[in-house]
Structures are given as structure tokens and as C-alpha cells.
């Protein structure tokens, strides 16, 4: 019955601006799931995918506070940076808004996706 797992899950944490930020990246077929947070909550989820026309990726919030744009903007930015992969990105971001922190979080994620993203999938 048991067969090898085809979904790779990677967990890592990093101290960014004196805060321990936890990351979870799941690699699925043609898509990624990314969770970023300081605490173990799943309070929202957004999805972004490459738009057929135009360079701005399409993005939508699946659930959570609609006025909190952290997940949608992160999804959109990751989609832009990982553009050559042209995959769907699901993002859940529960890091409180901080201009400097979000840039660094985004950088770290883009690095992670670029590092392992183009590999086996």
C-alpha cells in the first residue's frame, strides 16, 4: 500500500529583524503552497496565477480578512519573481505588517522557490 511521497514539504525558520519567522513551503504539481508566520495560525489564504494577457498576475483571497493585503500582495510578488516557473502560488501570510520585514520575507521566499523550484517538478 505504501508508496513514496510526491509532495515535498520544507520547513525552515529564520531570524529576521529580531523576529523568528517560520516558513513552510509545499511543492505540488504546477503549484506551490507557502505559509509564513510568527505564530501557528492559518488566518488567510490567497492564490496568484500568471495572467494570460499583461504582466500583472491575477490574485484572489480565498478566505480571511479582506482588508489585510499581506497574503495577496506576497502571492502576487512571488508570482512575479517566480514568473519563469509560471506556476500557481498559494500563500498564507500571518506576519504583522512591517514594511521592512515583508521585503526580507519576500526575498527569502523568492530565494527558496528559485533554489528548489525549477528542479524535479
Amino acid at each position, binding site marked *: 500500500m*505504501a508508496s513514496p511521497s510526491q*509532495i515535498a*514539504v520544507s*520547513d525552515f*525558520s529564520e531570524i529576521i529583524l529580531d523576529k523568528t519567522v*517560520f516558513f513552510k513551503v509545499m511543492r*505540488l504539481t504546477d503549484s506551490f503552497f507557502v505559509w509564513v508566520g510568527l505564530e*501557528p495560525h492559518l488566518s488567510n489564504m490567497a492564490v496568484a496565477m500568471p495572467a494570460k494577457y499583461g504582466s500583472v498576475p491575477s490574485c484572489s483571497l480565498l*478566505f480571511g480578512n479582506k482588508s489585510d493585503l499581506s497574503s495577496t500582495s506576497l502571492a502576487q510578488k512571488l508570482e512575479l519573481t517566480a514568473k519563469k516557473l509560471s506556476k500557481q502560488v498559494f500563500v498564507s501570510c500571518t506576519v504583522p505588517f512591517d514594511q521592512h520585514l515583508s521585503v526580507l520575507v519576500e526575498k527569502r521566499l523568492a530565494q527558496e522557490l528559485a533554489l528548489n523550484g525549477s528542479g524535479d517538478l
Partner: protein
Amino acid sequence: MAASTNPGTQQKSIVTTKQAAADIAGHHTEIVVNNFKDHLFIIATQYMKLGTVVQVTQDLIADEVQGSCPMFSTNVLLGKDEPLTHVMAKTIVAALNPSKDVILSLALKDTTPDTVHAVTDLIKTCLR
């Protein structure tokens, strides 16, 4: 990398993830259960994609005869919003009887009751 980013990692994660894989009726099936504090994020897939994402919330209804019986409300967040999706989500979550709300992602090639029950059993192995 910016100077303020410290590559030194301490804890691995605060969210536990359990995975299981099996062959159900000839289809490779993968289960991923992410245990968040406020939600369970369960992926059950035969396409290795998220597919249909359903939010399942629990409402406790106090019943004079049976005591409290759990009722589940389903809300399709992404994908096919058809009756079968709601039925499958409710069947799976009711069998798990979770203590928190569930975000369930389903991408099944085969939606027969036998498969759904096999998938439920496989999810249960990840919740133990």
C-alpha cells in the same frame, strides 16, 4: 542578503505536518495534514495539486435528545462548487471529528464512496 537577516535557524517549525501516501483503487493518493492552532489544513490529492479548496466549519447544536451533535457547514473557496464537493467534504470531516475548523483541499480522480472512505482512513492515520 540583508545584514539584518540571520541565517542561523533555531526551531524547525511551529506547525506540524504529517504526510501519508497510498494506492487507492489504482490511483496514487497523497495526504498532507498541517496542524495549525486555529485550523487543520488537509490536502487529499490524486493529481498532486490542491484542486478544490473547501472550508469546513463546525457548528455545535445543542439537542435535547442527543445532547450536542456536531454539524458542519461547507464553503467552497476555490474550484468546483457542486453538491458532490460538499457531500465529500462533510463525509470526510464528520468522520475525523476535528476540534477545530478545517480547510480541505480535494483533488480526486475517483469520487466513489469506497475511495472517499479509504481517503478518510488515510487522513486518520495522519491525525494520530
